[in-house]
């Protein structure tokens, strides 16, 4: 029997296939994949990259530090719901295991914001 013999059954099959695809998307990349991605990313701006390499990268490219991985857009989206200003304030004050200023004692709010944008990968991933 042809399961797609009419339009209605074709629509049902398509819906099932889409649901399957969406379910696959829901599971998302594994921690290992996210970790591997985090290690490939670096800010394009040279001075921001210099700061990132000596500060944020220490924790945001390691699993189990409590810090969201660089480029883990899902993890960052949850945090960004609090508002970017809150995230920048968390950097300034320190948060959880993160030291005050995220160890960049000379940084200003613009740099912290740019680093959050980069780690959250709000713009397309630049490798």
């Amino acid at each position, binding site marked *: 029997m042809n399961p797609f013999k009419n339009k209605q059954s074709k629509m049902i099959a398509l819906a099932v296939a889409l649901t399957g695809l969406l379910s696959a998307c829901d599971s998302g990349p594994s921690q290992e994949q996210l970790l591997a991605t985090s290690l490939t990313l670096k800010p394009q701006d040279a001075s921001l990259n210099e700061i990132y390499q000596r500060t944020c990268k220490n924790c945001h490219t390691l699993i189990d530090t409590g810090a969201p991985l660089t480029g883990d857009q899902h993890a960052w989206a949850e945090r960004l719901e609090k508002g970017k200003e809150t995230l920048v304030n968390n950097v300034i004050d320190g948060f959880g295991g993160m*030291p*005050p200023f995220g160890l960049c004692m000379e940084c200003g709010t613009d740099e912290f914001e740019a680093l959050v944008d980069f780690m959250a990968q709000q713009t397309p991933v630049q490798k």
Partner: protein
Amino acid sequence: MLTRRSLLSSLMTAAAATAATPSFVLANDKATQKRIPWKNWSGSQMCYPQSRKAPANIEELQALITNAPGQIRPVGSGHSFMPLVPTDDTIVSLSRLSGLLDHDAQSNQATLWAGTRLGDIGEPLANAGQALFNMPDIDEQTLAGALGTATHGTGATLGCMSDQVTGLQLVTATGDIIDCDKNKHSDIFNAARVNLGALGVVTQVKMQNAPKYRLKRETTWFPIEEILENAETLADNNRNFEFYYIPFSGMGFIDVQNITDEAPSVTDKIDQNDGAEDLKMLRDLLSWSPKVRELTVGSYLKTLSKEVTVANSWQNYASERNVRFNEMEYHLPRENMVKAFKEIRALVEKDFPEVFFPFEVRYIKSDDIWMSPFYQRETCSIAVHRYFAEDYKPMFKAVEPILQKYNGRPHWGKLNTMSAAQLKPHYKNFDQFNEIRKQLDPQGKFLNPYLKSLFV
């Protein structure tokens, strides 16, 4: 079969069913910040510096020190609980002066930039075939910050980190560079190994290291009376030994580490950050009845099995600390530990039901460093903690006299109220240190209000 967490949940549910409303209200005094302040990790210290700098090289640092108006305070990663950093003038970070500079395979010595985080030392040293003899249980600190405050790990035969320093470089208040060791500028070397950031900015450090090694860490839960009874033997028979006590539980755990050739491995581990949150929750539910609390918490802790981790030394000392706290730690003559511990436990469990963070006890070998709290004394340290968002002062104020009564010397980086007059009898070279300080910094450029209270 019940898992650990489901058992804990069951116990909590049962206890909560009998609980009245918690008998105290949690402090909620975290101030909101409108400007960019500098704060330490726990939030207990804060300032509004005019200038925050991170020089890229020694020349930039020299120019900064020479030209900056007002006070200058070096800052590491903000893990000191004492007001060593706060200034409204200039704070200077060495985060751009970080990494391994040089190493010698024959002597197992290595020179590091002083701005290197302890957690970033292990891997490059291992690549050079070396490892630090010992490390603390937090590795976020910079090397300069750790040495400046006599930061230590545990081990009755192992000194604090400064004890392994064989040479260092300082940039002084005049912008001069001084390289010192036990033969060259030996007085400055003796003063600078533990220096509170009061002599200048330490830029480079030469460390005596060990050939790289692997450690087997074993964590086991016991009734606290049993731990106290065996503590001295455990300290003598293990390379690294420490223990923790969970207040209002009657239970603690011991951590022992020894060098091994076993392959790296790890058993099921309890997450210490989750553990702290669980203890806080139990405190919230059960502080109305210490007996119910001890029964509940103690019953849970007795179900925990031994944890074993085999790893490279530098990966096995520190744990992630994502739950912030404030801490007081005093270094006591080793023979006074049990008496002091019992008094503190009795006091806290009588008067401070809000406490849930563990007490921590560690061992440190004596040394010959002028401002080291371990100066010519085999030492046992007792540390008490309070959750960062709650007021630490009442409990610390009550505990501190006990630690002082047993001849304790405070950790330079942890909360204490000792004045210069109280500290001097503990440090026979206190005045000599201050003379060196005055020679290097006659204008007091590196003195903030706290350091002025000690040295002026």
